[in-house]
């Protein structure tokens, strides 16, 4: 039996197999895509798990109007501390948006992608959306443009989209059955009327499917987003995955419902729960049989700026942007240098992995089947373990098995250590963090304090700071091999033993 550490054997590499740092040899990342598609997405943080460690994106909030209502959205809510789609702090005109993009691109060399995602529906604001794209095509030709839509106006906008050199479109498709749709969409605005209930959902679904087909026929890359709503569409999303794949969508992103009463949304107020980590992962795994799945989505705000999982929007408010003096040509050259360097590093890592494959795979292992293990990783990006446990705002979760290491998803936590004055609350927040890591058996970070170390151990999660600055998958594979050697994989999970003993 072989332990395919990163899933990149020399042969797979030669075939142009998967290059994603997080993908392992599993079939649910970008490895199975044709070369021309991988070329398009290799530096797109939202489409490529590997790219999101190295490249940044931004959204500009130029599209306020919406033509449908979703039960997980509330157009009244606008809070700077909240991070979810549909929320923005400052609506921009196309001219302001262009200035902001230029400023961000000049200051964040990792930036490769500009998306318009709201706060309403970009295609319900065609003039503002396309004016922004038109100006950027001219002024920032190296930035990739993409757009996210609910799909209702998509068929009538496909022509226009094609004119703007947009090669990535995301459609949110939560259902292909109007009876399910009626439980998600209370109304749509269609041909000058508000249409409620099942009839509205039926029209929306028809338009989404038509738009998807038109885009893929034209060779435009389409990713499909779905919100997983337990008891509403959770059973149905496998079917959605099949249908959209058949129509040519290249990636399916199943996201958990965000619903809190404070948001004032229908689901929030009515007490609809979101899925657990396990339910989400299990559905993603089921859909993966039919589809390339995406697992690193952070469900960004419609005005997010920076690497996925971070938001540097505060540094680029319009009043600050207006003050910035930017030499865009120089910035573009700098960006090209940075991005070339990153691509070279990624290539080098890939080759190194192909070389380390053999020694790692020859590690001594128990000859019998060993169970898979979930591990959490603290990283600030770059594909390496480089973050202090207490500084991590989120952990990436990987599953190690005797066959491979694969990226499962991310879990957000409350930051428990801000280096001083909030330490009074440290214990409860730390408890919360540990609860977030439920199901993981080890946590890999660059450093970790004494107190969290002890508490993690008590919770049955092994802290590990021995692999600082190492590539994530290799480190996870090593820890898995150590666990196997120590006989820990023959036993049930430590957390389960603690529970059983309690």
């Amino acid at each position, binding site marked *: 039996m072989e332990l395919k550490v990163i899933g990149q054997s020399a042969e797979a590499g030669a075939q142009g197999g998967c290059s994603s740092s997080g993908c392992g040899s599993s079939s649910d990342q970008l490895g199975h895509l044709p070369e021309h598609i991988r070329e398009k997405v290799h530096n797109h943080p939202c489409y490529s798990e590997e790219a999101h460690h190295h490249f940044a994106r931004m959204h500009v909030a130029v599209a*306020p109007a919406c033509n449908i209502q979703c039960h997980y959205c509330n157009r009244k809510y606008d809070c700077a501390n909240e991070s979810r789609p549909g929320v923005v702090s400052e609506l921009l005109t196309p001219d302001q948006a262009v200035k902001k993009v230029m400023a961000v691109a000049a200051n964040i060399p990792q930036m490769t992608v500009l998306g318009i995602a709201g706060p309403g529906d970009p295609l319900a604001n065609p003039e503002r959306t396309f004016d922004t794209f038109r100006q950027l095509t001219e002024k920032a030709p190296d930035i990739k443009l993409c757009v996210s839509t609910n799909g209702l106006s998509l068929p009538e906008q496909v022509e226009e989209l094609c004119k703007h050199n947009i090669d990535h479109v995301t459609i949110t498709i939560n259902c292909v059955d109007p009876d399910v749709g009626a439980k998600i969409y209370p109304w749509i605005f269609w041909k000058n*009327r508000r249409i409620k209930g099942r009839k509205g959902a039926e029209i929306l679904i028809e338009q989404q499917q038509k738009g998807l087909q038109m885009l893929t026929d034209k060779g435009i890359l389409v990713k499909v987003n779905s919100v997983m709503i337990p008891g509403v569409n959770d059973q149905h999303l496998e079917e959605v995955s099949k249908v959209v794949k058949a129509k040519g969508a290249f990636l399916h992103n199943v996201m958990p419902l965000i619903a809190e009463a404070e948001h004032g949304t229908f689901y929030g107020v009515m007490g609809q729960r979101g899925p657990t980590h396990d339910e989400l992962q299990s559905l993603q795994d089921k859909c993966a049989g039919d589809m390339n799945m995406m697992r690193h989505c952070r469900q960004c705000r419609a005005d997010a700026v920076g690497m996925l999982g971070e938001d540097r929007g505060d540094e680029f408010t319009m009043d600050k942007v207006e003050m910035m003096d930017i030499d865009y040509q120089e910035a573009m050259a700098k960006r090209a240098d940075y991005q070339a360097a990153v691509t070279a590093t990624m290539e080098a890592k890939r080759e190194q992995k192909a070389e380390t494959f053999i020694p790692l795979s020859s590690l001594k292992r128990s000859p019998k089947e060993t169970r898979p293990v979930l591990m959490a990783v603290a990283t600030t990006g770059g594909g390496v373990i480089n973050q202090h446990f207490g500084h991590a705002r989120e952990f990436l979760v990987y599953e190690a098995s005797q066959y491979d290491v694969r990226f499962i998803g991310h879990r957000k936590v409350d930051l428990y250590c801000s280096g001083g004055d909030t330490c009074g609350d440290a214990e409860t927040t730390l408890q919360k963090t540990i609860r977030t890591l439920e199901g993981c058996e080890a946590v890999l970070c660059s450093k970790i304090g004494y107190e969290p170390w002890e508490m993690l151990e008590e919770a049955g999660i092994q802290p590990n700071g021995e692999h600082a600055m190492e590539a994530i998958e290799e480190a996870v594979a090593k820890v898995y091999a150590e666990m196997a050697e120590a006989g820990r994989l023959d036993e049930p999970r430590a957390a389960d033993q603690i529970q059983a003993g309690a």
Partner: protein
Amino acid sequence: MSYEIIESCVNCWACEPLCPSQAIYEARPHFLIDAKKCTECEGDHADPQCVSICPIEGAILNPFNEPANPPGSLTGIPPERMAEVMAEIQSR
């Protein structure tokens, strides 16, 4: 007779391009309808357009000064449930 936009408007722009009489205009703190221009869409559409796309219950009043989209009519949240949940959040 005219429709009227009131303070709960969130300035989402959805209604502005739909008005067949160009009666709606951007203003602070919220959009407004020019009562002299508003025709209630009579002769142009079966339903008043601003009322048909507005996502905010209560943000537009009809000519009788009543909410054109009353509480619960757009979100499907029963008003009593909303009141209960909001009271619970306040008391935290």
